[in-house]
């Protein structure tokens, strides 16, 4: 049972007990009244008996008076008294009709009365007729009859008294019982209400404590939320700084490549070029006819060295990119790529495609390099199509091949994982695109792969730092 049910049950019991005590109160009052009624009943019976005795005595006295004096007034008085007797008897009978003993007593009394009345009538008749009456005998007879009558009335009185005692005792008992019920149920109700009060108090106390605990845990939670937000902010800040760092690293890498590429090209390359020049001139001179073969070999070596050097430096950093832009750098690069890899390339460019910022051109060039590397290494495609276009303020580079696509092992559901599995190069490209406000998308199927790089042509001031 839940505490609520228990409290409710207790309360219901208390209410029921209060109802019981109310009923018991009512009953006790009614029993009290019943007791009172019996007392008044007894008084009535006594009064009725008294009345009857008075009427009988009046009749007896009047008879005696007539017997002694012969006065008509006594006779009238006697008749009047006798006339009242039946009513009295009837009244008494009515009052005692509920009790068989009293009924019996009344019947005996009536018989006695009838006998006395009969005697009286005889005596009156004798006097009227002038018959001599022995007053002493009459007296003696009357005394006897009166004594019997008195016994009869006394029997009624004492029976009534006895009945009253019994009834009042019983009423009293019930009264006490009812009072006990009232008191007991009332006390019990009070106790139950007290328990109820205790339960409620405990419940309320528990609730208050729970509320406090809740408030406290809310505060703690709010504190945790604040902490977490602060941590998230810190995380965002550190992510931003990581991004900056990675951008910085990419830039540094590019600058390094550029420096090495330039160094190779500018210093070493020039020396080799002039070496070849001298050798060519030597070759042309008649004085060295004998060493022509060797000179020819030197020339060839110089040519090879220059070619190697050029390849390295150009691949590190395409010099023409800065001077002439993607329009020239890409076809140049594709030429070399086709030759090295035997992959046929095709290049399309929008006619209105002009120069972009250094960062953007370099980033797109690197995407091209990386994509073509993958085409050669993984796709098995015989062709690669490169397209450069402008769409909605964005420069779009597409590199499409007809290879076998990216295999199950390296593909994943999210772009991030995909790029990770393909290596640092593509991840770097992706990062660089994002830094420039663009994106890198790779769509692959068993029929081929398309790498699309999209980057806004107008860069935000902070990204336009470029490589100096």
């Amino acid at each position: 049972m839940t505490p609520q049910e228990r409290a409710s049950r207790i309360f219901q019991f208390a209410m029921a007990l209060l109802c019981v005590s109310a009923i018991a109160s009512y009953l006790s009052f009614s029993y009290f009244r019943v007791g009172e009624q019996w007392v008044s009943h007894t008084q009535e019976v006594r009064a009725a008996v008294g009345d009857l005795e008075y009427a009988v005595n009046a009749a007896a006295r009047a008879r005696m008076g007539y017997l002694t004096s012969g006065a008509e007034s006594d006779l009238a008085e006697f008749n009047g008294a006798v006339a009242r007797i039946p009513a009295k008897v009837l009244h008494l009978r009515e009052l005692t009709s509920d009790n068989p003993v009293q009924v019996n007593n009344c019947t005996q009394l009536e018989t006695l009365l009838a006998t006395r009345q009969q005697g009286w009538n005889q005596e009156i008749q004798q006097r009227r007729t002038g018959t001599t009456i022995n007053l002493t005998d009459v007296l003696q007879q009357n005394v006897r009859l009166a004594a019997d009558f008195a016994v009869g009335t006394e029997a009624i009185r004492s029976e009534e008294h006895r009945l009253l005692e019994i009834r009042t005792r019983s009423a009293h008992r019930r009264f006490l019982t009812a009072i006990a019920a009232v008191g007991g149920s009332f006390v019990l109700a009070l106790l139950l209400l007290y328990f109820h009060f205790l339960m409620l108090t405990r419940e309320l106390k528990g609730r208050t404590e729970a509320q406090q605990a809740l408030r406290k845990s809310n505060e703690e939670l709010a504190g945790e939320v604040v902490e977490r937000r602060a941590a998230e902010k810190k995380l965002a800040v550190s992510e931003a700084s990581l991004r900056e760092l990675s951008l910085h690293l990419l830039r540094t890498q590019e600058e390094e490549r550029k420096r090495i590429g330039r160094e190779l090209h500018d210093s070493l390359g020039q020396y080799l070029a002039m070496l070849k020049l001298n050798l060519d001139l030597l070759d042309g001179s008649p004085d060295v006819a004998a060493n022509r073969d060797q000179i020819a070999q030197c020339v060839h070596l110089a040519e090879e060295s220059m070619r190697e050097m050029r390849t390295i430096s150009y691949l590190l950093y395409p010099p023409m990119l800065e001077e002439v832009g993607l329009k020239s750098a890409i076809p140049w690069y594709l030429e070399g790529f086709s030759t090295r890899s035997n992959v046929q390339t095709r290049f399309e460019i929008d006619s209105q495609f002009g120069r972009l910022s250094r960062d953007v051109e370099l980033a797109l060039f690197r995407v091209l390099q990386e994509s073509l590397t993958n085409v050669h290494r993984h796709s098995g495609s015989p062709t690669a199509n490169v397209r450069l276009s402008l769409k909605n303020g964005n420069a779009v580079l597409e590199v499409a091949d007809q290879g076998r696509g990216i295999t199950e092992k390296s593909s994943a559901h999210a772009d991030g994982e995909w790029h990770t599995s393909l290596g640092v190069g593509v991840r770097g490209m992706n990062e660089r695109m994002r830094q420039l406000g663009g994106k890198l998308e790779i769509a692959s199927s068993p029929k081929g792969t398309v790498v699309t790089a999209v980057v806004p042509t107008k860069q935000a001031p902070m990204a336009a730092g470029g490589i100096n």
Partner: protein
Amino acid sequence: MAKRILIADDHEIVLEGIRNLVGRSGRPWVICGEARNGEDAVAMVKSMQPDIVILDITMPNLNGLEAAKEISGMRTDCRILIFTMHESNRLGIEARESGAHGLIVKAQAARDLIRAVDALLTGGTFFNFPLDEKKTHEAERKPTGLFRRRFAFA
């Protein structure tokens, strides 16, 4: 009258090489000036009014193509010859578009420089592109170099 040649390159060794070639050419040519960057080249063309300027592409301050654009925009009869390390078919088009009258590569300096200057000074052009493709491609297909193998797929 000797034709006056202005040369512009940021590498001393290249300037020396050109001087050498011009000297050995037997032509009535004189080198009137040497610039180390594009800006100086443009200024010198303006002040010296040479007959021909030989421009390297990769130079500080102003690169050769931009210098060529500026020079061709000036009121001058100066012929412009681009003399570069870079080898690309596309570059010939770029050079033409920037106003140059000829383009030769340093790798073929011995073969082409004098011929190109000759051609330009007589009012012609010299764009020897495409290169001697057969020779170039044959040579490239033989992976002889160490670096070639490493960078073949890059």
